């Protein structure tokens, strides 16, 4: 199994498309940090505190590296799945498209083991991507704006002391990675249905966009459906920054996200095991 995973890792990380996401975020994040550094931070602060500045003079290094690290993760959330699907959608459909499935399946390895190896590689790529974005945003922001307490604007203003932040961010990125695992798993499932890698990418993004619209609109029907959509649990990582930390809700979110991920994977295994390979 380890050898299978290793082969799949080599296949994945020798394709240039695997690096599209790294290149995109490697450009976007430094660009935004530079913009903020060259004056954008001032207008950002004015905009952010426009409602408070009538009554208060706001002092302190509030818009520091931790703040922007947190802000970036919140703001880039919709865009991260796009780059993840490029690789996840290619895992099975890519083989079908290239016509290499027959060759691959003639080996004395079960379909389940092959698809499991591909799935594990998809998860590894997802984790590396999320940690890359997290490390880049936090690292660059801290270099550019320095440290300090974290200001979290969520149900009021919460200030978290700097000493706790590395630990909280580590847990947050773990939860963010889990949420993205679900996206990759869904794309992986769609990838099993088709031989065209574009299809799973579009289908996954369509599911995410429709889900976001449903959970954002205040209609009773939509809000009733909301708990059944995995996108609803995308912000589990941000709950780590609540006070007190709602560990029971976070545990529930972890269980739900893991449930979605396992369901998508098992569906992919079942479908692929019975699939008639024609290419």
């Amino acid at each position, binding site marked *: 199994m380890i050898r299978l995973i290793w082969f799949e890792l080599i296949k994945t990380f020798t394709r240039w498309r695997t690096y599209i996401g790294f290149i995109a975020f490697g450009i976007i994040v430094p660009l935004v940090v530079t913009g903020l550094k060259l004056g954008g931070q001032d207008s950002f602060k004015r905009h952010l505190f426009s409602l408070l500045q009538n009554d208060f003079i706001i*002092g*302190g290094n509030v818009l520091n590296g931790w703040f922007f690290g947190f802000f970036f993760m919140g703001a880039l959330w919709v865009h991260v799945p796009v780059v993840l699907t490029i690789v996840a959608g290619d895992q099975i459909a890519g083989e079908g498209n290239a016509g290499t499935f027959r060759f691959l399946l003639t080996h004395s390895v079960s379909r389940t083991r092959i698809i499991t190896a591909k799935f594990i590689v998809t998860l590894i790529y997802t984790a590396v991507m999320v940690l890359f974005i997290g490390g880049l945003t936090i690292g660059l922001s801290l270099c550019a704006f320095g440290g300090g307490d974290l200001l979290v604007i969520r149900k009021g203003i919460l200030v978290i*002391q700097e000493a706790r932040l590395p630990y909280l961010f580590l847990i947050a990125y773990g939860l963010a990675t889990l949420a993205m695992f679900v996206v990759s798993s869904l794309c992986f499932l769609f990838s099993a249905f088709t031989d065209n890698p574009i299809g799973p990418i579009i289908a996954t993004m369509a599911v995410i966009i429709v889900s976001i619209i449903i959970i954002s609109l205040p209609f009773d029907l939509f809000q009733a459906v909301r708990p059944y959509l995995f996108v609803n649990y995308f*912000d589990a990582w941000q709950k780590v920054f609540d006070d007190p930390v709602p560990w029971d809700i976070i545990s529930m979110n972890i269980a739900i996200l893991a449930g979605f991920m396992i369901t998508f994977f098992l569906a992919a295994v079942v479908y692929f095991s019975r699939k008639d390979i024609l290419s």
Partner: protein
Amino acid sequence: MKRAIKVKALFIILLLILFISITVSAQESTPQQVFQAIIKPYQTLSDYTVKIQAKVMVPGFRMPDFAADLYFKKPDKLHIETKSFAPIPRNSGFFDPFQFDPGKNRITFIQAVKLDGMQAELYKVEPGESETRVRFYNVWVGGTPRRILQVENHSFKGTKALVKLTYKNVEQGHENWLMPEKAHIHLTFPEGMQSQDNSSFLIKDNPVAAGRGKPEEMQGEGDIYISYRDWHINTGLDDSLFQSIMKSTSSTH
């Protein structure tokens, strides 16, 4: 009979004189003179630095107590230095001895009152046209030496801040300054104001919007306690300190 009427008239005149003299002594000088006398000891103050320790108990704010260095330079330059998030109430967190300069404000005497068992006079101070945030202040003046005991400011937006001040003597060389030791600021925010974010049609509590929020209009009441220590007066603070440096500080003027 005539004599009795004369005595009565004399008695009434005496009463009138007594009443007038009491009224005059209560308002022995014009409001302008009172406030001129209050700021007179600070005429030679050109700047100060002070360390503060603050406790914020305001609705929607969950934050640890914070320490900061405050810098003030005449006429109204302010600067805060701290690594913490430090919301200092505008017009009440900083001690500005020239805030109620009679030359820049319209001051009227309201009434003599008792404040915490102390005889005080209540004045209404309406800032000049340059002030865009505060509609008017109610200022309680009393004590010996005469000083500002309490200020209530009413902003145009509807926020009310009641500031109770206690003072201490700060000796610096041969000079002696009466500076605030503690300030208790009670804030009352206007009810029913809605920010634009609040009026958004979309559900705010969604995973995409979360983490990109903006503080909302505050409602209800809150308290801020500030204690001041280590006053350094007239150290010749440079103007560059008060320019807007975003890195780790905040300035306004």
